[in-house]
């Protein structure tokens, strides 16, 4: 009864709440570790009729609870620039543990199918085989086969770790922009190499036992109020990044040359006389080193006063300039039906329009391909 009244007196002046924030700007490592027991005991001295005495108070004890807080951010500026068909394209994130204790973190790579607005542009394709890996060797670069951990194990207070989202870019015409996000969930730590389960905040309405470690989520809304990828105090975080197909053209050039193979008269230096066989050579060079050119189609009209030599089209790696057009070519048939063709390169000759069409499967970045065919001078 007495205690209660005294307390009421103490509470009469509650205008000093501003004190609360004074010690909040501190690092997680300097915070009292979750599970620490804090006890308060006072002692007293006094005299009774001049005789000194001492007394000790009861001890008040409480256990410091777990204040779960962490950040997840993307560490790259702008989008990762990719090419169609690229494997293991990487976006990079960083997770920092601000909890007053060691934590595991679960990683979940997500496609953002809608345009999130946080990033400029409009998402119009998805990556395949999207995975998240921890930078195990801590070098900031994704190393396939080395960075294989798919969750963060035992991250100390204030420590951070890099996480990669790795995916494959599909061969999809028109693909320009794909957004992805790393969704991180705080999980129970304490056991090395054991994947903790996701933490659940202790119910604020439950009468808690004083000597247990409650879980209190103190993480912020990592993507702001406008976006629903994350909300404050849910033990989760999310950061966004993206992939951009930037190169939509390459420096492709075609060089055409001709040489006389045989004139029926001269063995050594055949001349371009009627009846002579000529070889035309089309050499396609892709000067853009990083990007292949797909489905390169060449058309060539056989000159007047010459006749196409049937079945003479060959497509393949260029030979030494001036000596051989195609070093290791595959012969192509003349008809337009290429269903039986399996090497990707196809060609046909239309005798009506005297037009030769060759379609190269892919000219690699910095690579070249040659097409040769023969004609006879009328």
């Amino acid at each position: 009864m007495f205690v209660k009244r005294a307390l009421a007196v103490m509470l009469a002046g509650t205008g000093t709440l501003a004190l609360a924030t004074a010690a909040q700007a501190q690092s997680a490592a300097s915070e009292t570790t979750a599970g620490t027991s804090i006890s308060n005991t006072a002692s007293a001295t006094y005299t009774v009729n001049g005789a000194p005495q001492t007394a000790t108070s009861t001890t008040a004890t409480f256990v410091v609870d777990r204040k779960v807080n962490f950040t997840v951010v993307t560490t790259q500026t702008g989008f990762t620039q990719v090419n169609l068909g690229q494997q293991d394209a990487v976006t990079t994130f960083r997770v920092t543990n601000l909890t007053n204790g060691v934590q595991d973190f679960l990683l979940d790579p997500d496609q953002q199918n809608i345009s999130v607005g946080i990033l400029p542009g409009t998402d119009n394709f998805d990556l395949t085989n999207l995975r998240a890996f921890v930078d195990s060797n801590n070098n900031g670069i994704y190393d396939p086969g080395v960075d294989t951990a798919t969750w963060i194990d035992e991250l100390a207070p204030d420590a951070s770790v890099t996480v990669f989202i790795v995916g494959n870019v599909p061969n999809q015409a028109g693909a320009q922009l794909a957004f992805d996000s790393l969704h991180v969930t705080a999980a129970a730590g304490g056991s090395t190499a054991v994947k903790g389960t996701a933490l659940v905040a202790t119910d604020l309405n439950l009468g808690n036992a004083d000597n247990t470690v409650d879980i209190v989520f103190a993480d912020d809304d990592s993507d702001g109020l406008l976006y629903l990828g994350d909300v404050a105090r849910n033990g989760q975080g999310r950061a966004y990044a993206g992939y951009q197909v930037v190169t939509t053209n390459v420096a492709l050039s075609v060089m055409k040359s001709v040489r006389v193979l045989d004139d029926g008269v001269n063995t050594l230096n055949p001349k371009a006389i009627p009846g002579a066989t000529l070889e035309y050579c089309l050499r396609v060079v892709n000067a853009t080193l990083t990007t292949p050119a797909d489905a390169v189609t060449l058309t060539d009209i056989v000159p007047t006063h010459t006749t196409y030599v049937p079945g003479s089209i060959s497509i393949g790696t260029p030979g030494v300039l001036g000596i051989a057009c195609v070093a290791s070519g595959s012969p192509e048939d003349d008809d337009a039906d290429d269903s039986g063709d399996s090497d990707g390169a196809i060609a046909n000759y239309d005798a009506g329009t005297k037009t030769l069409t060759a379609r190269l499967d892919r000219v690699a970045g910095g690579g070249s391909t040659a097409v040769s065919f023969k004609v006879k001078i009328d």
Partner: protein
Amino acid sequence: MFRSPFPLTAVALAAVALPAAAAAAPGPLQISSRVMVETRARAADGTTRLALAPARRVVPGDRVTVVLAYRNTGAQPLAGVTLDNPIPRGLVYRAPAPGSAAPAVSLDGRRYAALDQLRVALPGGGTRAALPDDVTHVRWRLDRPLTAGGGGEFAFQAVLH
């Protein structure tokens, strides 16, 4: 046989409860220490009231109020009552609690004074004014004898580091 467990349990409970009381029991001065937190409760009129509740859910950065309640349970008045409370490790002293007398504070447990009269020696020489963070002990002195049956409370606010 069947009835005996009940009284036995009561005895056992008393036995458990006693040592804590026994530690403080020898003298007539009884002191209880409590760590409280401020909680907000909605009152019937729609306003929010602050109340102190036992510290159960406390995380770094939270403010707690340490309350010392003292009482003279003896028949004699107690003179020169001095209550000394070392700040527990992990807590950082902030201020006297509202309604409580301000304690004398100490940076070393030996010299006590008002906070603004204390200075901290700097490593490179010189001194600076002491801050609440520097306080390691708080102490209250009753300037009048504590009459039989008399008591009261002192309290200070601290932040969990």
